[in-house]
């Protein structure tokens, strides 16, 4: 199961997400601010598989900063952006810059926690695929490099 970081300045929200994801067997860390999140991401070893972050915390673009830090640490970390109130435009910006998905916290009549758990599953699969692809790519490159040498 995955190593997941949940970033939200709302303690209740952090705890609720943590509980929900732990039920699926994930190992969940939490951070209460953009700064704390970036610190934890930098020091993580191995890197987190999935980072779930609120969009608006210290600033309108906290989510974006967390996304940058995550991709800097490991380009294949999957980031899911949470938006509380219609900051969809920001979330879309995050998607353009490499976030895996975004989720609106307040969709009337939808169990957003289950939806989040589902998105985390998908993110894990996506990460696994990417890692597999990377491995194949590396193993493919090595023989090519070996063959190239005699031609020189």
């Amino acid at each position: 199961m995955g190593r997941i970081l949940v970033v939200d300045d709302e303690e209740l929200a952090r705890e609720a997400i943590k509980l929900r994801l732990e039920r699926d067997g994930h190992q969940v860390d939490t951070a209460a601010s953009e700064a704390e999140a970036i610190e934890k991401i930098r020091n993580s070893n191995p890197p987190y598989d999935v980072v779930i972050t609120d969009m608006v915390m210290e600033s309108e673009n906290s989510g974006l900063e967390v996304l940058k830090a995550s991709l800097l640490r490991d380009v294949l970390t999957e980031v899911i952006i949470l938006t509380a109130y219609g900051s969809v435009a920001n979330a879309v910006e995050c998607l353009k810059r490499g976030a895996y998905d975004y989720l609106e916290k307040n969709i009337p009549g939808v169990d957003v926690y289950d939806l989040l758990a589902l998105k985390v599953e998908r993110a894990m699969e996506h990460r696994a695929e990417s890692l597999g692809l990377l491995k194949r790519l590396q193993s493919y490159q090595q023989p090519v490099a070996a063959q190239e040498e005699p031609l020189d």
Partner: protein
Amino acid sequence: MIARSEVQEKSIEDSRLYQLWSAIADTKALLKAILEESLEAVNATRGTISLVDYRTGELVTEFAAGVGWSEEKFGLRFKITHEPGNSISSYVAYSGMPYVCPDVTKDPYYYPLFPDTRSELAVPLIGRGGRVLGVLNVESEKVNAFGKNEVKVLSALASIAAFALSLATHQTREKALIELGKELAATPDIDALLEKVTEVASRLLDADDCSLFLLDKSINRLVLRASRGLLRSMVGKATYRLGEGLTGWVALNNKPARLNGVVGDPRWKGLYLELKPEEISAFMAVPVRGRKEVMGVLRVLRKKAHLSAPHYLFSEEDEELLFTLANQLGAALDREELQRRLFTMQHIATIGELAARTAHMIGNKVFAMKGALKELGLQLSNLPLLESTQRLLGSIERALYEVETLLQDLRDFVKATQLNLQPVCLSEVVRELVQDYAQEFPHISFELQMDEQPVWVKGDVEKLRNAISELIENSVHFLKEGGKISIRLAKSTWVGQKHARLIIRDTGPGIPEKLKEQIFQPFFTTRAKGMGLGLAIVKGIIDAHGGTIEERGREGEGALFIITLPAIEPTQGGEN
């Protein structure tokens, strides 16, 4: 002969007129001085200055000088005519030409006033545009006392008198205009301001009534907003279609109309009259022009003194004055509209910002509560629970979802004014919506009326669709089985500006008069569900498009919403 040489030597420059010139504000003193100067200049026994009373078509003796005047000879009125026996002055006022009478005993026009009068000379006071303002008349006890030289001198003095009269009128008008300008800038109450304009126009133009019609775009009609006399009780009720009657003609063609009387003019309809048609002496109307378009019509009328009185016409000068008044008013209305719009926009922006922040905080808390509730439910699911406990958990969950629905409403409201403008075929949007709703609500009959030519507007298609949907849904909500919703879309042209007009009418209970003011306010609703942002959002969307929305139905007869949006040409649809 001595008298004549004196006349030639005496030049106007030496006279005491020039001392009076500095006191020109006192027209009466000036005219008196001119009269006295005249007697001296042509060696006359006595003389008068009479002024035209345009209302009655009479000449009234206003100033007299010389010997022998008594009370009963003063203030005499003569009919202005070429008929004999009505006084020489009256004939001069009629002809507009100087008149020398060498011997009164042989003169057909002479009207005997003094037994010693033998000869007379009368010259007209001519104002702007050749209009006769009055007559300067001198007489002598000698026969043949006045010749060419006297005519010349008297004419010169008469022209000074005419100039003084014109200047006095001009000054009065200028002063009133400056005062009105100040009031227009300072009066916050628009209705008081409109009243003021009609009052000033009546006073300055010597008119018996003045009415102001302003365009109401939502019904595409000119509506009476202020009037002085008979029509006062019709304010807000009397309306003209564009092009209908003279008033409608002025608005449609953006041109003034100036007529003597109105009977016989093909444009005249006489829908709303300040006076009986045969009582109207003269009529004048000018368009009230705003920055972009005609905003209304300002019209004045003069009443006949009696049925056979001559027409007391409005002059070119009068028309200029009425135009000036109308222009000042137009500028004031523009400013008012701009301020209102700015205020509304600021108001909405403030509410929007507040709403956005609050919603963000509440949304976060609700999200957390949903999570906690879910975990609580899971932990409790292993325990044997009372049915009522289960129900309570369900209620909390539902309540949370409702809170989220409210948040979504709020978000829609805030977003309503943020537009993504594109050419939109409004006809298509309306047709699709009506089709959809007709399918969804088969128990209600829908009627759609549209021009063959599609109507295009520049707008945000999603937001426009939302706004129209909201109105239709609103109607559906209040309609019973068999109810009807009529929707009409048409393009209307209004001097230089084309508008799309969308009318949505239903056969529901209608909106009570006392609620009409509030229905477009945020957080107003008579429905149980939601926050009552519906119509406020609709208005927000329409306002942001530069349009208007109004409710014009009568309680008990159903609701009637009228939307206008600035239209564009279909050819512009392909651009961008």
